[in-house]
């Protein structure tokens, strides 16, 4: 809550809106207690008194009624009607939306068709029609305004509910014996409530305006009762001769609607989870670089990551996601990076091309060299040129690379043509061939599918096809086959293997599957808590792991052909990255830990071919 308020007040306009509306609300609530004239007493002798006349702060109207008193009473009424309309619209609309979204199917179809029909009418016409049918009067205006706004809530809330109703916790609730009503009230409602509040805070201002509009037309509050709209309506005839009678209520409407909308926008932004992480600014095109210390000298590798450090600053905490990682690949070589989630594999990969989101991420040290040239801090244009063309990525979640609104064929040809000079039809041929290469059945037809029309496995294959489109020199693949079936995985691994043999493609393959690295990779680097703890040739590392973590991780993983058995788990969890223990990060879970392990920095040592970061390695490497 206090975090929410802090975010809200960082937005100046919202804070201002809050202040203004708070004053207005206070005045409106205090109106009956204030020493005011009776708002409805007519005194024709005193008509059209100017503001600041004696005893009449804001003057009088065409019937000699006190304007200040009418303004405050009118504001009170307008606010009450607007808020009541918003509440009614929110309750009815949300109820419709939740029911339609939860039950889906035919209920959803019928209800939403009706809502669509209501929405097809121009807004104000619909309101007029309702008032015309019910007859003028403030109550009927309220009903009309609420009715007109019901579809807005129904649509919004239905959208949210459909997403929630498909979530597994709803199934779990049904299996726990809950009925539909209970599920809607206790499982769904608490999750949609914030959305309802946001929708209300952004619409209540307009509803006040709409009620005022109806009153202005004489369809809302009836004389002598004052609300802001009817005050404005009555002042219309004297607009030129006595402008203050219209300016006073007009200004109040402006202040109310303005402040509520500013506040509503502020509330919406402050509740937006994307802004929660503290980043109010737009993410930068490349990762922020705050490098300290000297950059390591160039090597003759194709791609070399040298002593890379990447950190995340979230609030007061500093997460050291990558703490000095060095990796390198030569043409045709494939390097496996193995580690559990949170060990820094993905951040290392993303840092290479400056793809780590900034803020909160920043590269704080080291270098990444492609053919000797340092990429860290390189201008955005230079990086963009190399992204996709020289160094391509394949991500675990293919939706990260595919745009939902374009056909996959369009996206592939786009990618091909952005780096190469091909005609549209040639690029399309190439796209179909790429889809065939990654074994998409019926590629000629599938090329015109949208991403959502494909299964997860197929989307992943399209992601790989995108990465291969411009025949890059290096592919960085972040768990590309984790979500795939074994038969498809085998195909993709073979495809990658062929490419590196035939074309000298270098591969950095991030995974947690020992079987996959064993088959595809020449060398393996094992990561734990942001650092490499062991690196060496695949055979050596898997056959004779030197680091206790590597050995025990291998033991955790069941292997096909081993039969039914108890698995050797590693108790405990990996350390939190903002509070790493001094010395060996694995020490709290290591059975061999000694006092010396917890003292200071432990270097990655041993022969260059098989190095290990441990004081008591399993076997001399």
């Amino acid at each position, binding site marked *: 809550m206090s975090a929410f308020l802090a975010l809200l007040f960082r937005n100046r306009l919202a804070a201002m809106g809050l202040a203004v509306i708070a004053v207005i609300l206070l005045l409106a609530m205090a109106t009956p207690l204030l020493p005011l004239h009776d708002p409805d007493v007519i005194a024709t002798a005193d008509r059209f008194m100017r503001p600041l006349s004696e005893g009449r702060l804001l003057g009088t109207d065409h019937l000699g009624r006190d304007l200040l008193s009418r303004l405050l009473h009118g504001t009170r009424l307008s606010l009450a009607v607007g808020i009541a309309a918003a509440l009614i619209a929110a309750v009815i609309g949300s109820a419709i939306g939740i029911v339609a979204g939860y039950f889906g199917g035919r209920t959803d179809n019928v209800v939403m068709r009706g809502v669509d029909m209501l929405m097809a009418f121009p807004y104000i016409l619909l309101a007029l029609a309702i008032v015309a049918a019910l007859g003028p009067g403030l109550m009927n205006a309220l009903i009309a305004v609420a009715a007109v706004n019901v579809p807005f809530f129904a649509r919004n809330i239905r959208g949210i509910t459909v997403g929630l109703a498909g*979530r*597994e*916790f709803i*199934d*779990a*609730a*049904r*299996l*726990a*014996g809950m*009925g539909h009503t*209970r599920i809607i009230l*206790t*499982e769904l409602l*608490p*999750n949609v409530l914030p959305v309802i509040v946001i929708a209300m805070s952004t619409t209540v201002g307009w509803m006040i305006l709409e009620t005022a509009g109806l009153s202005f037309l004489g369809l809302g509050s009836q004389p002598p009762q004052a609300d802001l709209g009817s005050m404005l309506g009555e002042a219309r005839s004297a607009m030129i001769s006595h402008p203050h009678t219209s300016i006073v209520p007009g200004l109040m409407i402006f202040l109310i609607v303005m402040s509520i909308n500013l506040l509503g926008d502020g509330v919406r932004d402050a509740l937006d989870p994307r802004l929660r992480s503290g980043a109010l600014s737009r993410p930068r095109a490349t990762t922020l670089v705050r490098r300290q210390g000297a950059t390591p000298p160039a090597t003759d590798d194709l791609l070399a990551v040298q002593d890379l450090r990447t950190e995340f600053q979230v609030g007061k905490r500093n997460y050291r996601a990558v703490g000095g990682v060095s990796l390198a690949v030569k043409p045709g070589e494939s390097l496996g990076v193995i580690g*559990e*989630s949170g060990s820094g594999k993905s951040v290392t990969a993303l840092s290479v091309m400056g793809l780590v989101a900034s803020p909160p991420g920043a590269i704080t040290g080291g270098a990444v060299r492609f053919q000797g040239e340092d990429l860290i801090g390189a201008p955005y244009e230079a990086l963009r040129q190399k992204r996709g063309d020289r160094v391509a990525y394949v991500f675990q979640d293919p939706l990260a690379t595919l745009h939902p609104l374009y056909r996959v064929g369009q996206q592939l040809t786009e990618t091909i043509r952005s780096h190469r000079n091909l005609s549209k039809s040639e690029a399309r041929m190439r796209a179909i061939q790429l889809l*065939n290469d990654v074994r998409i*059945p*019926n590629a000629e037809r599938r090329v015109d599918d949208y991403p959502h029309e494909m*299964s*997860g496995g197929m989307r992943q294959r399209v992601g790989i096809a995108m990465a291969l489109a411009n025949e890059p020199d290096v592919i960085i693949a972040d768990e590309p086959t984790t979500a795939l*079936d*074994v*038969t*498809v*995985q*085998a*195909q993709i691994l*073979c495809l990658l*293997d062929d490419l590196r043999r035939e074309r000298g493609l270098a591969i950095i393959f991030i995974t*947690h*599957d*020992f*079987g*996959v690295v*064993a*088959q*595809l990779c020449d060398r393996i680097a094992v990561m734990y808590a942001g650092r490499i703890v062991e690196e060496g040739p695949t055979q050596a590392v*898997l056959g004779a792991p030197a680091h206790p973590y590597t050995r*025990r991780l291998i033991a*955790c*993983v*069941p*292997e*096909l*052909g*081993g*039969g*039914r*058995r*108890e*698995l*050797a*788990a*590693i*108790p405990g*969890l*990996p350390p939190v990255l903002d509070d790493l223990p001094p010395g060996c990060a694995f020490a709290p879970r290591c059975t061999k830990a000694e006092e010396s392990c917890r003292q200071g920095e432990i270097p990655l040592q041993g022969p260059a071919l098989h190095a290990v970061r441990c004081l008591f390695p399993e076997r001399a490497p």
Partner: protein
Amino acid sequence: MPALKVEHLAKTFPLKRPLFGAAPPGAHAVRPMSFQVETGETLGIVGESGCGKSTLARMLVGLLEPTGGTIEIEGKALGSASPAVFGKLIQYVFQDPQSSLNPRRTIRQVMEAPLKRLHGMPKPDRDKRIAEIFASVNLREEFLDRYPHEFSGGQAQRIGIARALAASPRIIVLDEPVSALDVSVQAQVLNLLSDLKARFGLTYLFITHDLAVVEAVSERVAVLYFGAIVEIGRAERIFASPRHPYTSLLAKSAPVVGRSLTAPEQKGSELPDPLNPPPGCAFAGRCRRATELCRAREPELKQMGENQLAACHHPLEH
């Protein structure tokens, strides 16, 4: 008496009716299938994505109405009963532990629901029972008043298991219970599951796509392809000496340390279309042994060797 007996269970999803003409026949997600699971047994179910694993599981727990067939639990037929009736006998552990917990309810509220709704337990009994269950899944009681986002994947999955246990079911369906977890945590959860099974005399249906995991935890394994069981047999035998060509393809595709990389399947092979299933064996388009007979007549599950059944006209010999 088997813990679970399924006969001719099938599910066809209706398709959208086109503007003109009759409704199409629908997508056959699960084709009529029969099997049993003995009390205390773990039956592994493997198959590729879209083969109907989750559809089968959801029918078994009553979340999805079958289009045909019967489900019997400990001799009791469950017709079109509601999930609340199923819930006391059979429970479900979901693949994604985070998404299976309501982000706005505390763990205590999550745990109380099945005790209150399914068993009508009064408050003091509930507290006692929750404490017992939490102890058995190695969770601390102070977690009860926290919200789901405060837990790691492994802890959240243990909470999911605890919730399933709270219903005191006889059978638990585990739908990819460890695939969202880290390897080191995966082993912790798998070991916990095997402890719980022994302690409470549970029966498991273990759904996964990871052959090594299924072999490590199951007594028997059923291999699903295109909505039907193509082979079922002892876990230690089925991948070592498969009779069905598809089982063999799966086993050869699994990445194994020390085996060199070979594509076990040619590139041109085609996958069956669920909207327009082929007449004979669904695997024929990918099978090297396929003959005219395979394309004309669908093979039935037949006994092949001890405790092993396969649906194939030309099974592999060993």
